[in-house]
């Protein structure tokens, strides 16, 4: 049963999806590439997940599910990825008076965990081709993301449009 596999995979992803959407992208990739989507498709999906409304992990789950088996797989993936987070919130609310965790210590350890997850995401999604256009788009995204407040959406759409309209012309100019 492939739907069951989707449910289990995205449930597991939900368990460790703390620290903001991008930290979990590498983990999603390890689980679904190349089993359900190709490397190139996965990168495109993440770009779309970031430029559509909603949290990125949730959007990625919906899209990968859809790609794999249509509406019901999309629904199953989406619900599965939030099952554990919702259970965690409910459990904390119920147990809050009995269990006392040191909030500051927990946050420090989560910070280390999510930084490591982002670093791993960067490693597993490092540019996979020497195409100068691909490298230039990546560099542009890093510079705007790290040093300006421009929404990543514009770099995503801009790079897509440049490649769609002028990609072949630029590549033939560079002699590739």
């Amino acid at each position: 049963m492939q739907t069951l596999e989707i449910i289990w995979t995205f449930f597991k992803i939900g368990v460790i999806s703390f620290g903001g959407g991008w930290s979990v992208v590498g983990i999603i990739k390890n689980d679904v590439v190349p089993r359900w989507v190709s490397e190139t498709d996965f990168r495109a999906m993440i770009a779309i997940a970031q430029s559509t409304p909603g949290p990125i992990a949730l959007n990625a789950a919906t899209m990968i599910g859809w790609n794999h088996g249509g509406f019901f797989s999309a629904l199953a993936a989406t619900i599965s990825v939030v099952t554990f987070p919702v259970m965690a919130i409910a459990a904390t609310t119920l147990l809050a008076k009995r269990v006392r965790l040191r909030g500051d210590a927990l946050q420090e350890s989560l910070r280390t965990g999510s930084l490591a997850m982002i670093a791993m995401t960067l490693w597993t999604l490092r540019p996979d081709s020497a195409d100068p256009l691909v490298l230039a788009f990546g560099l542009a995204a890093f510079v705007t993301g790290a040093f300006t407040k421009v929404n990543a959406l514009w770099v995503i759409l801009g790079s897509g449009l440049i490649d769609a309209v002028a990609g072949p012309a630029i590549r033939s100019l560079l002699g590739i």
Partner: protein
Amino acid sequence: MEQTKKPTPLSLFWAIAQINTVTLGGGYVIVPVMASTFEKRGWMSEGDFFDIFAKAQAFPGPLALSTAILSSQKLCGTKGAVAAFFGVILPPFIALILVSGVIGSIGSLPAVKRFLEGAGAVVPGIVAAMLWKTASKRKWTLAKAIETIVVTVALVLFPSLSLPILLAAIAALYGIEVLCKRSK
């Protein structure tokens, strides 16, 4: 001004659903918009909202989801939490089904293919920028740097064990933090 107004679960659902329909860019973009909306409607001050946001970061799951659930739970209990859940989940789900449907039918056109490839090429750059920003905001010590590197290397070397590695690492690091604080 004291916050005296109380939202109904339905008004919470609509407010959160609207924000999640028009705000692009994930949790870090959605949360500030939610904070200002809640304050404008007199439900909760931005200060209180960001206190909840800080707490939400300790939970797994999308930040927009945990922040919305926790703040709505404070405002109108379990019903509020359920309203927030659907407010966050439904708009992106519908949007993504539509987008995936469109891509499914035109995705094989060469220009669309190039668009998607160009857009996908941006992804490593965005991740690198996230890493840069998160790392430069942190107060580093030698111990924290070593811990972070060890966990990263473990994740890179054993991709299929990421779940146990992370759970063990977080539990161990939590224990270390607590012990260090106690010995001071």
